[in-house]
């Protein structure tokens, strides 16, 4: 079954822009990215859009669809009624380049700031031995496709540009948690998470989890466990007292 859908697509660049109306054909089984491509093919050949795999695996086609951060290639048209007006904008947390394309380099800088996997010094590559039960917890986090939808929706930086320097965002706090749980990682990541990457800014309101297309339980399985680990290190009065006494004697 085909029908004509009503789309509003944001077009513009850093100097300004607006929502543009399009009436465009939709066929059974299509996803939002198909419709964007049709607009590009038939009505707006210079419409800028980033995409690669069309299979929900490269994380390039992130946009906001009716105000909700989503992958365009994984958003089926069948979730909308034919009468509905569908509004597509670029991610509203990062600087826009053109049309639906944003500059997500903030995320790459934050990724760089997380110290990489640090195995014990005496251990040589090839000597790593790990039990499955020890790694399976962090395997969930390895499903991340770096679409940065979680980064986009997180109010800490979405609503506060000034927090960007002090907050890494859910994706990279999850990376820190992943390494902190890693059986072979010996780096100290607890102070780092709190002091450098702003874990305390997260108020566990779970929007990152709600939008993650890989259904990673970011808040429950990475951020909260990391908060608990930081708590033991930094805020546990009993442990603090124990450490004081140990230092004395």
């Amino acid at each position: 079954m085909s029908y004509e859908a009503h789309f509003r697509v944001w077009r513009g660049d850093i100097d300004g822009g607006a929502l543009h109306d399009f009436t465009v054909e939709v066929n059974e089984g299509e996803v939002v990215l198909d419709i964007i491509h049709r607009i590009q093919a038939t009505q707006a050949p210079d419409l800028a859009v980033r995409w690669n795999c069309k299979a929900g695996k490269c994380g390039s086609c992130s946009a906001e669809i009716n105000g909700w951060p989503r992958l365009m290639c994984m958003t089926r048209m069948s979730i909308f009624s034919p009468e509905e007006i569908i509004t597509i904008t670029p991610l509203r947390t990062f600087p826009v380049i053109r049309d639906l394309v944003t500059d997500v380099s903030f995320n790459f800088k934050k990724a760089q700031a997380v110290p990489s996997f640090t195995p014990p010094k005496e251990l040589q590559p090839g000597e790593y031995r790990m039990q499955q039960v020890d790694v399976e917890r962090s395997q969930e986090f390895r499903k991340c496709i770096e679409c940065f939808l979680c980064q986009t929706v997180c109010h800490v930086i979405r609503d506060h540009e000034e927090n960007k320097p002090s907050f890494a965002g859910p994706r990279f706090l999850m990376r820190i948690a992943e390494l902190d749980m890693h059986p072979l990682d010996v780096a100290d990541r607890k102070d780092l998470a709190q002091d450098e990457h702003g874990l305390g800014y997260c108020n566990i309101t779970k929007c990152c989890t709600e939008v993650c297309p890989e259904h990673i339980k970011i808040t429950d399985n990475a951020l909260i466990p990391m908060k608990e680990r930081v708590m033991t290190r930094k805020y546990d009065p009993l442990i603090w007292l124990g450490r004081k006494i140990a230092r004395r004697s």
Partner: protein
Amino acid sequence: MATGTVPGPGKARGVFSAGRAQIAEKTLRTDNWRASPIFMAVILGIFVVYSGVRLFMNDNYYAAQEHYLTPMYSPCISEACVEGSSDFGTWLPDLGTGVPIAILAFPILTLFRATCYYYRKAGWRSFLLSPQACGVPEPWKKYTGESRFPLVLANWHRYFWMGACLLLLINTFDAFKAFEGVGDGIGMGVGTVIMWVNLIALWMYSMSCHACRHILGGQLKHFSKHPVRYRIWKFISKINPKHGDWALISLFTVIATDAYIMAVSAEWISDFRFFN
């Protein structure tokens, strides 16, 4: 046709910050995103009002005949507690009518719930509007979350959890006591059933807690070296995703249990007994 205006430079913050796509609307969400935070605010409001009233009532917390003690007043440790309600001693003097008898249990339970990750989320969304709903801008100029005093103290949740677990053991004792018959022997009434439903809800709530999950296993780096704690962690990880549900269910069962015991104790209703 193009629509939309560019916001003035004066109030350029959040999604209107310089450099971001200039879109006039604060949010373009089309669903009913206001419903959930309002619903939550109403539920929490009802609970706060109810428990506040009950706290200062200082009465009708123990149904002596049926041996039902409400979880809100348990353990009853004041010399003012009515006869039969203080199985754990009365080591607190009678502080007069204006002072709540539940002066021990109440603060622990309040702090336990207030620092619970689920209620924190609910509070941030419903009362502090940070954020009300995902992708909906919060109204504040500045935001530092839980990184500073006093909100950083929410990190002490694990201690309130431990306190709540001790109280829960006492609630478990109370629930067994609810099998004592009117007069002699054993017995069971509707109140016993209500108390047990509440007890199960409270255990599920407390055992699915994130701090519990961390303490009993989550803090480990090598599960393979601690097989028992790994299994405990596995179990908690199974019920933990439903922690929010248990938080709400147990909120209602506590109110229901307390209200029922209050009604029986005040003789507004009489407890239906299955056997005595």
